[in-house]
């Protein structure tokens, strides 16, 4: 046991080292992709914006959320949530529209009449951001509340669909944020690809792609490692507990035994038998678990996992990097198209049109990218490494669970294979029986026909003293 504890502790330490190393590597890759300084600058600016402008609907959103949580039944929840949000949203829409109108008028008046005043009212764009961020926060609070309420849906399929709607809305909203950057530039008359690129927030855009493709490797891997570490620690603790139970039991039995001496030998023997059986059934798992050589096997499997995980993380980061680049290319193409439309004097009245354009351009570019040898090979490699890791974990679990009365998957495979062979044999025999039955039926029918023909011949022969001739059987 002492030996096992040392091995597990070392293994856990190694796992943590790997995770920390990967997190550093991931940050480096992101830095290289986005261009180090720009990444940091963009992040700081974005964070400042959010921090400075989260005040407009904060308290209202909180009250609305608390109101939803207080509802009792699904019907009441639906009514309470929707009525409340409908009323609140109508109020906010009116306020937002009014604000938008006021700001637009103010902007136009001051810009055309007073350049100095315009400089002061440069904060118009900040206020637009304020609305955007406040709305975003309201939306987040609302979607979080609704997520909890979907537990009351009667069908899992409708629950999944609504959750997917929320995710879709999330992406939609994030694309809208990017679009507003472009519209700000358009409004101030200095929209160009160069300006757009300078204002482009790579971290923000990355979150869109992460949501689309389900990337959150660092979080998932860390969580996986944490869960695995907890599993190992729990396993150790349980082993200690079981060991303690046995020790208590041993102590109790031992005391009982010594108190019985000197006694009737027959009774003594019976008691010893009972004591020994209890001892054997309680302690045998520990004997099996501590079999020499298994720790080496466990260690080897653990090292395989560590190696494969490192490879998986590197290739996973490579895949993400390729997808982010494809996403950037798509966004650039959309913005180029938008720039051309701006030059032609187009009027923009709908974000939906932009979103549709963005969606179809991304679809085309990602389909082209997915059709490359590079992507195909990388995807295949990732699937293979993922399976190897899972195989290693499965092997570890089998080694650890082997002492317990649990049927392991490889033992079930033997049963399945035997079952399959037997079913195949039965099917083949059934077919043979069917064919034989058909043959017998045919023969019986033909024989009946032959008998009928012979009777007539015999009759004739007996009349004129000749033996009956064999006749051809009637065929079906």
């Amino acid at each position, binding site marked *: 046991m002492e030996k096992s504890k040392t091995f597990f502790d070392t293994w856990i330490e190694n796992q943590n080292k790997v995770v920390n190393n990967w997190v550093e590597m991931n940050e480096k890759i992101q830095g290289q992709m986005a261009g180090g300084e720009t990444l940091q600058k963009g992040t700081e600016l974005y964070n400042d914006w959010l921090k400075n402008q989260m005040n407009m609907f904060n308290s209202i959103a909180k009250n609305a959320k608390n109101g939803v949580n207080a509802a009792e039944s699904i019907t009441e929840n639906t009514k309470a949530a929707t009525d409340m949000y409908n009323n609140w949203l109508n109020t906010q829409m009116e306020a*937002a*529209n009014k604000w938008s109108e006021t700001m637009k008028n103010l902007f136009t008046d001051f810009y055309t009449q007073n350049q100095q005043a315009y400089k002061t009212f440069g904060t118009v764009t900040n206020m637009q951001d304020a609305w955007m961020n406040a709305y975003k926060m309201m939306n987040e609070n609302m979607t979080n509340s609704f997520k909890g309420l979907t537990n009351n849906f*009667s*069908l899992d399929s409708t629950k999944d669909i609504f959750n997917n*709607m929320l995710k879709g809305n999330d992406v939609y909203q994030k694309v809208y944020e990017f679009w507003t950057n472009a519209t700000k530039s358009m409004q101030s008359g200095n929209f160009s690809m160069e300006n757009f690129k300078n204002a482009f927030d790579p971290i923000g855009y990355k979150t869109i792609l992460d949501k689309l493709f389900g990337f959150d490797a660092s979080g998932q891997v860390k969580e996986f490692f944490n869960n695995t570490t907890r599993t190992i620690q729990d396993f150790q603790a349980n082993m200690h507990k079981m060991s303690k139970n046995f020790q208590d039991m041993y102590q109790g039995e031992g005391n009982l035994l010594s108190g019985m001496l000197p006694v009737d030998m027959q009774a003594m023997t019976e008691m010893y038998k009972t004591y020994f059986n209890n001892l054997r059934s309680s302690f045998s798992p520990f004997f099996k678990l501590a079999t020499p050589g298994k720790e080496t096997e466990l260690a080897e499997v653990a090292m395989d996992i560590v190696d494969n995980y490192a490879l998986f993380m590197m290739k996973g980061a490579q895949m993400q990097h390729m997808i982010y680049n494809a996403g950037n290319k798509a966004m650039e193409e959309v913005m180029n198209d938008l720039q051309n439309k701006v030059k032609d004097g187009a009027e923009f*009245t709908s974000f939906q049109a932009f979103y549709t354009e963005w969606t179809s351009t991304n679809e085309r570019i990602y389909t082209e990218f997915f059709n490359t040898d590079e992507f195909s090979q990388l995807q295949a490699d990732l699937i293979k490494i993922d399976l190897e890791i899972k195989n290693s974990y499965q092997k570890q679990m089998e080694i650890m669970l082997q002492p317990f009365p649990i049927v392991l998957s490889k033992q079930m495979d033997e049963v399945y294979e035997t079952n399959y062979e037997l079913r195949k044999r039965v099917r083949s025999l059934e077919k043979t029986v069917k064919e034989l039955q058909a043959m017998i039926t045919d023969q019986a029918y033909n024989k009946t026909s032959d008998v009928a023909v012979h009777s007539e011949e015999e009759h004739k022969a007996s009349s004129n003293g000749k033996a009956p001739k064999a006749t051809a059987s009637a065929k079906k």
Partner: protein
Amino acid sequence: MKINTDNLVQEFTQTAQRLMKGYETLSKINEIDVATAEKELVWKDGKISLFRYKNENKITVQTPILIVYALVNRQDMMDIQPDRSYIRNLLSLGLDVYIMDWGYATQADKFTTLDDYVNGYIDDAVDFIRETSASEKVSLMGVCQGGTMSTIYSALHPEKVKNLVTLVTPIDFSTNDGLLFRWAKDMDVDAIVDHYGTVPGEFLNSGFSMLKPMMKSAKYMTVLNSLDDENKMMNFLRMEKWIADSPDQAGECFRQFMKDLYQENKLVKGELELGGKKVDLKNVTMPLLNIYAEEDHLVPPSATKPLNNLVGSKDKELYKFKGGHIGVFVGSRSQKELAPAVAEWLKKRDK
């Protein structure tokens, strides 16, 4: 350069309202019904069943037709809803329709092979129909992978097949026109099957969803516009239910299908072996109707069309359907155009 900010604000906030409406609509739904055409279980072997559809109309095509669907996803899509049901259409046109139901494979089925499906289950079903109907032969209608299996069966048992209809069926896997065909060539199929045993439907679905990466997010925003229309919403929900209903795949069958067909294209090369016998497409001599979808991103036309040049049939037709892989069955054009065309073709060859 004009930007109407009022419209933009309204447009964006309306999305939130629609989400709330979506919640209300979805929370009231207790059942999503698909595949409601009445049918009767007539034969069963383990998890595999054979159903015969009840036909209130007069049967005008005497040769029964057996629909062999793919192992991937469920045949319910052919009867997704009463007004978009390829099967109901065939029934109304006087066909006697049977359908294979492959059930839901479990780990116990991991050793089931392609030979078991073709020379086992399909052959048993065909024999059952032949024995219980007045017909010595059966017409086969194979869909997608089911079409591949039906073609293989027809090559091995031509004496039992009256007519062969294949819909969006992959035959020539050498093409890279579709992403699935491209990706399959690099997959380590042995690693997948050796790990999973029975390959999970979720694994396949994750691949299918990558074929149109933006669709998953975009369609949920589009459906928000249909929340007031209960019929449109239910149509959407039925498709979603069908998409999610993805059975696991028997490992050994998956292994052979992927390696021998997708990776080595053995069927076209004449090297495919099943049950110890080589599959020679020239042995397909019965009338053939080969239907392909022009905009099929799952099974590109270049994978389907070559069948007509490989079979020994003298009576063969290639039918182009303007639509996608699923549109062939659920689209409105399919109800008006395809089902009648297929029924007419079968009727002419019913003697």
